[in-house]
């Protein structure tokens, strides 16, 4: 069972929810719960899940290198490159691959008639395993600063998921390709929102995306308290299960700011997260 925790808008509380669910589920299902931080641009789960790293795996890309001495400047590689990553100046006998633009697809290497292209590994990120409740229960994907291939790092991170038990994906914000890379690999999607016009606008985008992908889904309202009626009307009209509401309180914001698990901040909040967890388990069991 793979559950993605998402939000169209950033900062609504994805990490608060995913680390909370991770804690509560771990209590019920010992050693059968895994959390993957897929927000590889800004992975924050480790701030709340204080654990030691047990292994680090690099995420590599095969980047071509063109030998200008062998190259005949026929231009086939440049024509084959869909990403405009090849710079060629035949009069100067200059040809180079711009590594920042290259997706590592291998098209240039394939079309080169002179075998002038060799490929080298370039690291674009890493996947780390942590020892938490048990080995490998918490896994983090982290893109190297300056790289623009976040989706690739996410896909690689997801290959580290176990095949059994409950797997939680802490997704990046938004609705574009990095989010799709996470959501398309999940069985259930938790959409975290907040009761503001921004929260609702971005929730609608997220809900449309999830529907298009045909994924079962539910909503958690974070920072609840502001009775923003259009949000509740939207949820009712679209018949989306409301999994729970986490109130806005300064003490919760303060616990979060210090890197504490919000779900464990008081017995009342813990039972609230238990309620959300039970609803998710109920909703996902309806699926199967």
């Amino acid at each position: 069972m793979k559950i993605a925790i998402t939000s169209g808008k950033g900062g609504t509380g994805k990490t608060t929810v995913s680390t909370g669910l991770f804690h509560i589920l771990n209590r019920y299902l010992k050693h059968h719960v895994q959390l993957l931080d897929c927000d590889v641009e800004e992975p924050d789960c480790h701030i709340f899940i204080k654990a030691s790293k047990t292994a680090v795996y690099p995420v590599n890309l095969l980047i071509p290198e063109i030998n200008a001495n062998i190259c005949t400047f026929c231009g086939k590689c440049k024509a084959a490159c869909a990403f405009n990553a090849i710079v060629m100046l035949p009069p100067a006998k200059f040809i180079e691959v711009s590594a920042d633009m290259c997706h590592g697809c291998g098209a240039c290497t394939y079309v080169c008639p002179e075998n002038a292209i060799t490929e080298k590994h370039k690291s674009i990120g890493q996947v780390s395993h942590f020892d938490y409740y048990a080995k490998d229960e918490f896994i983090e994907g982290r893109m190297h600063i300056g790289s623009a291939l976040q989706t690739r790092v996410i896909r690689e991170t997801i290959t580290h998921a176990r095949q059994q038990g409950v797997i939680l994906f802490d997704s990046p914000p938004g609705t574009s390709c990095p989010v799709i890379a996470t959501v398309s690999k999940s069985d259930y999607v938790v959409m975290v929102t907040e009761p503001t016009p921004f929260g609702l606008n971005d929730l609608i985008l997220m809900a449309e995306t999830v529907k298009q992908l045909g994924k079962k889904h539910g909503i958690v309202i974070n920072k609840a308290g502001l009775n923003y009626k259009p949000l509740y009307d939207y949820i009712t009209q679209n018949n989306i299960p409301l999994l729970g509401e986490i109130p806005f309180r300064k003490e919760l914001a303060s616990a979060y700011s210090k890197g504490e698990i919000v779900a464990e901040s008081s017995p009342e909040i813990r039972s609230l997260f238990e309620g959300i967890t039970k609803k998710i388990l109920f909703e996902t069991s309806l699926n199967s």
Partner: protein
Amino acid sequence: MKKPFEIVILSGKGGTGKTSVTAAFASLAKHAVFTDCDVDAADLHLVLSPDIYQQEEFSSGAKAVVDTDKCTSCGLCKDVCRFSALAYSGDIPVIDEYACEGCGLCSIVCPVDAITIENYNNNHIYFATCRFGPMVYGKLGIAEENSGKLVSKIRQYARELAQKHHAEIIITDGPPGIGCPVISAVTGSDLVLAVTEPTMSGWHDLDRLIEMIGGFKTPVFVVINKYDLNEEMTRVIEGNLLAKNIRVIGKIPYSDTMVLALLEAKTINEFDPSGYIAGELTRIWETITLTYEQNK
């Protein structure tokens, strides 16, 4: 005419208040063009309520499409694809459109020309006028590739609009994170204003953002929003930034005003012009304008 001064508002972590700050600047700036480059979840228009006078489609990616009538099921395409975007369902290759990056290698190797690469025109760029001036913003189609190309295009249009309207400043609401669209938003900007919050995540994400921007040499100013939610963390962030020689040009306390203004689709400076937060935002904007004047 001189190139307009381009300010981009970023944060690393989402939800720190980028859009509320950008909207406040909109009501303070004179002779400016506004853009929303958070194309993934564009929200600035909810406050600025622009009137759209023109829109255009924009293609940000391409995907492989198989003509199953021509396909001989030889399997070459599947063998060469490095994105695991091709799988066989019986004898028929099926493209995983979310995994396909549109590189076209499958189409190159196909011996019977059964694969074509088709552009997806699912994104939109809107040209509009709001009560503070001209605005251009984008909206990404569902599940589209946020490659930064759309961000670059919007910024190019913003420069053209600035020329046309003799605007001196372009104010851009940027995307969260540090990936492709953020790199496109920073490229060629004159100033980054990073809005952060006093949380461990806020700092962790800002630190990564600052390191990413370091590669561009664009100056960075920081505003700490909701600074009183954890004043100790605020001091830690201020200390860390001081060590990096980065100026904190303002601190905004936590207040319901931000959300209340939003509910009325107003900027904070319109909603509560004599309030403390509006005053602080005005002061922050003056610091930015001074920097811009010095750069003139």
